[in-house]
């Protein structure tokens, strides 16, 4: 469904963030992107919906090359790619409901969105989604009153109400505590399964990625150095991605956390 071909991004400073990335993501597949800071994970995700302009290469989403689209076409294409951010990136001074509905901006005209007169079907869907993530009672609260985990759930709703084919998820758990991180990862992967969505999830936490995601891609210095199932991610492979370190504790299945969670 999504295919990156020879995707290159060189920043003005001369840093080559992505070196000819080739990657294929079939429909409905959830994929975790791991790698050290500065490996190009964020750049890659942002190149796909062109928040960052790729230098060259093509991004094929269902056959259309996103890299070649004009401004209007790009807006249309962005509707089918939901994005979830590390620091949630909710509009802090708007309510939860307004934040969720802002996911429909690509479908609604300026004045309707400005006057908050969204179609009833959008409002129904927003309520359904908020109910699904357990925040129905928060719909009228301002976004800055919510806790981190709650904000990220709103961020997920905003991405899903776009009715996307693909989720681009940038460090969804980096600002959350371990328990909430697990809940959010579980929610994202469950929702992807329910709706048959493909997702690319940038993630720092290797153990978390192994726990929830069937395919892991390792990035180092803008190149893919690993692509396989979580079980294939050995200490050697981690050394290749991140550099020399004692990896044994990281890749041991981490049951203790689950027990603590169950006990609570």
């Amino acid at each position, binding site marked *: 469904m999504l295919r990156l071909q020879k995707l290159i991004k060189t920043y003005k400073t001369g840093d080559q963030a992505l070196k000819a990335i080739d990657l294929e993501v079939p429909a409905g597949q959830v994929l975790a992107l791991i790698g050290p800071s500065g490996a190009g994970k964020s750049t890659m995700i942002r190149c796909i*919906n062109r*928040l960052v302009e790729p230098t060259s290469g093509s991004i094929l989403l269902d056959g259309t090359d996103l890299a070649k689209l004009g401004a209007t076409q790009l*807006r*249309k*294409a*962005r*509707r089918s*790619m*939901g*994005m979830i*951010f590390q*620091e949630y*990136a*909710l*509009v*802090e*001074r*708007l309510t939860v409901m307004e934040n969720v509905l*802002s*996911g*429909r*901006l*690509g*479908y609604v005209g*300026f004045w309707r*969105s*400005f006057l908050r007169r969204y179609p009833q079907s959008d409002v129904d869907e927003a309520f359904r989604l908020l109910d699904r993530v357990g925040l129905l009672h928060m719909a009228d609260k301002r976004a800055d009153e919510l806790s981190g985990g709650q904000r990220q759930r709103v*961020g997920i709703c*905003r991405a899903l109400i*776009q009715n996307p084919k693909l989720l*681009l998820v940038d460090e969804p758990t980096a600002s959350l505590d371990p328990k909430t991180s697990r809940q959010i990862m579980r929610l994202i992967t469950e929702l992807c399964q329910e709706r048959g969505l493909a997702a690319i999830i940038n993630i720092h936490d290797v153990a978390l990625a192994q726990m929830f995601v069937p395919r892991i891609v390792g990035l180092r210095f803008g190149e893919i150095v690993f692509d396989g199932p979580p079980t294939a991610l050995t200490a050697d492979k981690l050394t290749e991605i991140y550099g020399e370190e004692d990896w044994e504790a990281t890749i041991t299945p981490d049951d203790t956390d689950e027990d603590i969670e169950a006990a609570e």
Partner: protein
Amino acid sequence: MPVVEQGSSRIWHRRTRNESLIRWFGWLLGVAVFVVCWQRISESTTWFFVWDAPRIANDIWTRATPPRWEYITQLGRPIWDTLNIATLGTMISLVLAVPVAFLAARNTTPSKLFIRPIALLVIVSTRSINSLIWALLLIAIIGPGVFAGVIAIAIRSIGFCAKLLYEAIEEIDHAQVEAITATGASRWQVMAYGIVPQILPAFAGIAVFRWDINIRESTVLGLVGAGGIGLQLSSSLNVLAWPQVSLILLVILAAVVISEWVSAKVRGAII
């Protein structure tokens, strides 16, 4: 950070010997300049007037008190004009300042090379000329009266409001803008959802703050004939009607105190 080794101990001073010397001479020079200036001013002062000042002040004080309270019936209209000049002027300036601010802010300007310098020029030029001077110019162009005062206040305030607003725009959280862009929103929608909610508190604060300043500025506009209570003040001064002057000053004081109170309340409510 000079360190002097003295036997086994290392003694630390904040400055080296040379730095201390330079600083000492700096202070010496400063004091010398101050003394010279003092002397020059003292030479060109007619000391008789200075020694006489308390007596004159006392004289004016006795003439000005008590204020002529019954004059207040003629002050209602001028103070109302003054408030209107400040309020209308502020509103007009805000309408004009918003687009200027968006054109001047680095992250929203359509062109950093051409449009941004023009917007900055508008900001600097309107800010650098006092509203009294704007009023003098405008009276020559559109004649004396309240309208000239309103326009003078409006033009004077554009730069102030636009400068503070564009700084607020430059400080917004870019992630929120990115998130709205990623939904496929149009440029105007990104502005309405990603930028406007973030700068709204700053905008309200600036508006009230400038209104507060403008009330004080518009009280003097009448001195040059641009309407408001300053007109009464200047005519009372011209006929040496000191009890009227003192009453006008009291009315201005009351208006300023009330406006301070209102703006403090509004700013408190927003933040």
